[in-house]
């Protein structure tokens, strides 16, 4: 209860601390009024602006991060789809290649067999033609050879075995030499 004590003191000639001084009262109101006005117009809006901008910046950052994440997810999905497509494509190509390879092998085998058959056929035909030719030329020569051999045999004495075999040997050697010269 200090004010009461103070009042008592005031009664003894001390100034009354509770006394009303209009100057001080008005001055306090005016100074505070100006302070309030400046705070309201200059300071508080600045702080509020900063606060709301900061909130917006944080929320904006979160949103940006979310949209980036969504974008990344979409890109990932697209890439996975492309990868799947590529795998599918690769499998298809491999399958195709295998089929083509098998077809080529089969074709080559058929070709080879045909070639083989053709070569064999051609060989046979050549052999038979050569044999034909040999037979023909042999037929043509046999007569003259026999005639020439007979003449030689007759020219020599036919009773001597050794002689006659010599004549035959010489004839064959001549024939051989003739053949070598022909070759």
């Amino acid at each position, binding site marked *: 209860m200090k004010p009461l004590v103070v009042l008592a003191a005031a009664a003894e000639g001390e100034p009354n601390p509770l006394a009303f001084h209009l100057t001080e009262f008005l001055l306090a109101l005016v*100074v505070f009024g*100006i302070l309030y006005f400046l705070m309201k117009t200059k*300071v508080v809006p600045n702080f509020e602006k900063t606060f709301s901008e900061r909130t917006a910046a944080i929320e904006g950052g979160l949103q940006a991060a979310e949209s980036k994440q969504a974008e990344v997810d979409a890109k990932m999905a697209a890439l996975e789809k492309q990868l799947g497509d590529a795998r599918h494509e690769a499998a298809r190509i491999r399958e195709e290649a295998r089929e083509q390879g098998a077809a080529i092998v089969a074709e080559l085998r058929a070709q080879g067999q045909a070639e083989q058959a053709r070569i064999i056929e051609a060989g046979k035909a050549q052999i038979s033609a050569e044999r034909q030719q040999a037979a023909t030329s042999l037929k043509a020569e046999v007569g003259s050879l026999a005639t020439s051999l007979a003449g030689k045999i007759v020219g020599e004495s036919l009773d001597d075995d050794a002689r006659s075999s010599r004549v035959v040997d010489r004839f064959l050697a001549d024939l051989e030499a003739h053949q070598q010269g022909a070759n």
Partner: protein
Amino acid sequence: MSLTSMLIVATEGFTPPGPGDFELPGFFGTSVTKPMLQLVLAAIVVVGFFYLASRRGAMVPGKLQYVGESAYGMVRNSIGRDIIGSHDFMKFVPYLFAIFFFLLLNNLFGSIPGIQFPTFSRASMAYALAALSWIIYNAVGIKKHGALGYLKLQSVPSGVKGPILLLLVPLEFFSNILVRPVTLALRLFANMFAGHILLILFATGGEYMLIHGAALIKPVGVLAWVLAIAISFLELLVQFLQAYVFTLLNAMYIQGALADEH
């Protein structure tokens, strides 16, 4: 105060501090006194500091801006929003913000070396702020509920019926409308006044005992100074608390005037 009178008896010739210590002369023969200048200085410093702190408005605040924002945020959120409610509080934030820091600095002037005079130990200045807050909370209530609706809100406690109202209505009116500005003003004024007078008493009393006291009394003078230092720290707390309480009560009165139910 009984302590004061004991000291007066114990030490003849010692002049105890009294209300006269608060009647400072005007400067250079004018009527401009120290507390008047302090009011102006406090307003300049408060606006200057918060203007500088809020001016840049950087997303990542520097030291000054951080301190300013924390101080503003404390009044805005823990006094304004938490008490008045998030719907209406923004309208009153500039007022609460201005009054809290204006009071805080003016009270701290009581402890700041070179000034050492709490501005609101001048009662008329406390009357001014209390009158202002009385006008504000009543005006807010009348604007929202109408004059009669507001009177009913402040005087008739809800949920009470019957003859007890005869007793309660005058009491509620008295306490909510008439007493509030008086207690607001006196609480602030008396705390500042008493704290300052106590400090003067311990400081001058200690000095008197050291200089004029007998040999055995001199150590008591030193003790008085030690106590004066301790009381100074207590005063710092009181100075902060009074600014806080004044602002808090303002917010609560405004909230009460805006409330739908008593």
